[in-house]
């Protein structure tokens, strides 16, 4: 079975199926004959981004958090693979958090969610797109597996955030080059 598959693949290559070949050449000789064949292999830009979790849960808020004004939590980790220079950017997918609760929707803005590549900041608003990696906002070189992390800081206040459940999606985008 395996031998048959190999034979079929060789046959396709020799017959020009699946791969573009240079203009056909011919040769003839009574003893030996050589024909040069150029194989062209498409090399597309390929990128891959794997996230460790599709959601991040901020621990239930306490009086201490509301008085401090913020809560910090570790987000997912991710692994980037790219065969050309790349960057990873972050932006909220909505301008406001979704809210479900008994109060009127407070329209909590996306800017109340900040992110950072490290647990200690600096913190960047998620309302607009910004580069997570590389930190110089240029591009990082090709990688066979670059691990990255993201941390979230959410902003809270006693008066602007009534009881309820809040949620906001964050898009993490890998762009190459």
């Amino acid at each position: 079975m395996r031998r048959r598959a190999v034979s079929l693949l060789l046959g396709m290559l020799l017959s020009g199926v699946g791969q573009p070949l240079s203009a056909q050449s011919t040769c003839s000789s009574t003893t030996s004959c050589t024909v040069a064949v150029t194989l062209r292999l498409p090399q597309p830009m390929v990128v891959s981004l794997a996230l460790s979790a599709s959601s991040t849960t901020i621990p239930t808020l306490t009086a201490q958090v509301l008085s401090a004004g913020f809560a910090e939590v570790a987000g997912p980790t991710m692994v980037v693979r790219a065969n050309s220079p790349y960057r990873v950017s972050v932006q909220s997918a909505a301008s406001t958090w979704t809210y479900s609760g008994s109060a009127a929707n407070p329209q909590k803005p996306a800017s109340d969610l900040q992110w950072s590549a490290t647990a200690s900041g600096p913190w960047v608003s998620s309302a607009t797109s910004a580069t997570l990696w590389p930190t110089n906002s240029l591009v990082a070189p090709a990688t066979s597996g670059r691990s990255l992390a993201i941390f979230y800081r959410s902003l809270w206040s006693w008066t602007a955030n009534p009881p309820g459940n809040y949620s906001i999606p964050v898009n993490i985008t890998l762009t190459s080059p």
Partner: protein
Amino acid sequence: MKVTRIIATAAMSAVLAGTAQAQALNCTGTTSAGPTNCSVTNTVNVSVPYVASLQVSSATTNLTAPTAANFGASAGVSDANAISLTVKANSSYKVTASAAAATWTGGTNSKSAGDLKLSIDNFSTTSALSTAGVQIASGASATASSNISIGYNVVYNWTTDAPGAYSLAVNYTLTSP
């Protein structure tokens, strides 16, 4: 047989669920020309419960000692701004005060808790204390910091208030919503 079918169905559901999750956590991008990108989404969730905080300025309040003129006088002895409460709440709230016991300790242990009156408006109005509790303040909306200044007024009786040191525990309760 029936059991087997159920297990098989459950296993298939688990596989399908796993496939869906994997798709949500990973992305790939491929292009032969021009930039490529791919995005994954991480949703940030949080539950905000009813949160309230009550801070009292002092755990113990020493009241003004009465004189002979105060005994039998309905005006009693007032201590304005004897204590203050600070309320924080992310929803509506109310504050009640109640006596921890029906009578003061000290003397003949028969001085009624109702001999202590509370006022939050500099004695324009007063509320006699009881073990059942009395509402002294409320807020229709959330507050980042509301200060409640409480004055105490005590009436004294010749026959029930024997010489001695008296004390009465007052419980302040914050309820939200």
